[in-house]
């Protein structure tokens, strides 16, 4: 083998300055390709939430019939449960597990040795997480439509719904990535997901918030995931509810800002 390298050319033009957006798209593209090559890790993000949807509806549908259950707005109980399943599919934190694998294997250092924006190392995988979740959430909603669930807000509402779920996937994965960067351990990252996971269940996922027991109602009110779930549910059951959507997207905006601020700090001090 013979490698030819160019000797230094002092007047050679400098390489184009990288930008966080360009670098993130390049790294995100690689992460999407990686996901497509590991369907065994992608498919559970759809089938496990669908499994819970079927089980939960099977257990509670007779308690909450479409007729006579005002909070269902004339739909079946699956429509009420769908947002919980969508948020579950967005809360697997796959990006963080790939990242920690890359840290342990040494490829992360190879990427760090390139002159890319440090934030792109974080944002690339989050962009991929956004795209993956858009695809998975779309598939889940389409399956739900086949079983008679309607999106009351129409096609525009459907787009808003999957965008909201995909943005939440970015936030959740971003926090998980912070744990990966801090601990550099797959076991710790996996364990940490168990800390965040209960947040999904301290929500009004079986009945509306005002029908929960008082302690659960307080917990759900303090839990930011509640507002995303209620916003998603409003799109399915009611239509465009400005107040619910403002709260849902507000929670996403605040948590996204916190996650990104912590990520900047973490990646810039990563040694």
């Amino acid at each position, binding site marked *: 083998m013979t*490698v030819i*390298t160019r*000797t*230094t050319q002092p007047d050679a033009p400098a*390489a184009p300055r990288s930008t966080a957006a360009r670098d993130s798209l390049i790294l995100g593209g690689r992460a999407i390709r990686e996901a497509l090559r590991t369907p065994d890790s992608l498919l559970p993000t759809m089938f496990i939430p669908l499994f819970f949807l079927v089980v939960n509806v099977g257990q509670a549908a007779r308690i909450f019939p479409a007729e006579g259950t005002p909070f269902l707005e004339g739909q079946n109980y699956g429509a009420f449960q769908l947002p919980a399943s969508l948020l579950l599919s967005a809360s697997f934190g796959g990006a963080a597990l790939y990242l920690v694998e890359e840290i342990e294997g040494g*490829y992360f*250092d190879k*990427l760090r040795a*390139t002159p890319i924006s440090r934030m792109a190392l974080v944002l690339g995988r989050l962009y991929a997480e956004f795209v993956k979740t858009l695809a998975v959430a779309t598939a889940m909603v389409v399956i739900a439509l086949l079983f008679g669930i309607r999106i009351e807000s129409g096609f525009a509402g459907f787009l808003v719904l999957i965008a909201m779920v995909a943005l939440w996937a970015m936030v959740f994965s971003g926090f998980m990535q912070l744990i990966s960067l801090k601990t550099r351990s797959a076991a710790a990252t996996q364990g940490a997901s168990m800390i965040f996971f209960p947040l999904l269940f301290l929500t009004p996922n079986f009945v509306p918030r005002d029908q929960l027991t008082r302690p659960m109602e307080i917990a759900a009110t303090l839990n930011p995931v509640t507002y995303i779930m209620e916003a998603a549910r409003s799109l399915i059951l009611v239509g465009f509810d400005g107040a619910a959507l403002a709260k849902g997207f507000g929670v996403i905006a605040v948590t996204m800002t916190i996650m990104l601020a912590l990520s900047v700090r973490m990646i810039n001090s990563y040694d």
Partner: protein
Amino acid sequence: MSAINAVGLRKTYGHGDEAVDAVRGVDLDVAAGEIFGFLGPNGAGKSTTVRMLTTLMTLSGGTAYVAGVDVARDPDSARNKIGVALQEAGLDDRQTGREILVLQGRLFGMSRDDAAARAQELLELVDLLDAADRRVKGYSGGMKRRLDLASALVHEPEILFLDEPTTGLDPASRITVWDEVRRINRNGTTVFLTTQYLEEADQLCDRLAIIDDGRIIREGTPSSLKQELRDRRGLDSDPTLDDVFLDATGRNRDRVAGEVKEI
């Protein structure tokens, strides 16, 4: 101009009572066009020094310039001028060899077409064209090393850092890598090489430094270091670089064999 210049380089891990000084004031001056060897026992501070010089780790003290760029003040400029192949050939097993090289080119600012053309050129040159579109997971250790080396050369760096490039390779693959390092150097690239193999350092390096316990304890050409030991000990024949290393580090074969240290 020096390709690499470091003065008083220090790295401390941890704080307070748990602080560990991994590198304790290293001075280095590597001339442009040299192959410079950096030797030391396990845990001596070799990899930590390389990680500081390649911007992968912050400096606890001192200054370091690579290709005239202060690595602490302007790490992005430094990254544009150096190529890095670290221990254990950290590669993404799920990508193909070609995809890794194209990605590397893109991250160094190349257009898609330029990156693809450069990848093709490098794959041909490192004899990986046949395996170019196979996933790296199926590559042998030698193939991974060659791919890692190629990926460090994508942007035609002025200085190439190789951290134990032949560790774990069979003798034939090792000689192939040595030949490649010489060719890269002949084309004008300065090479900074860490190794635990003294024969490798003897074969390849114009000059070398031995680090132990975070400090440089010997520096010079392989022949001058051997001559110095021969003169100092009044030996009848030339010592080997192994003898120089053992003399410098104060180790004997029994102690080295039994030592466990991790930094």
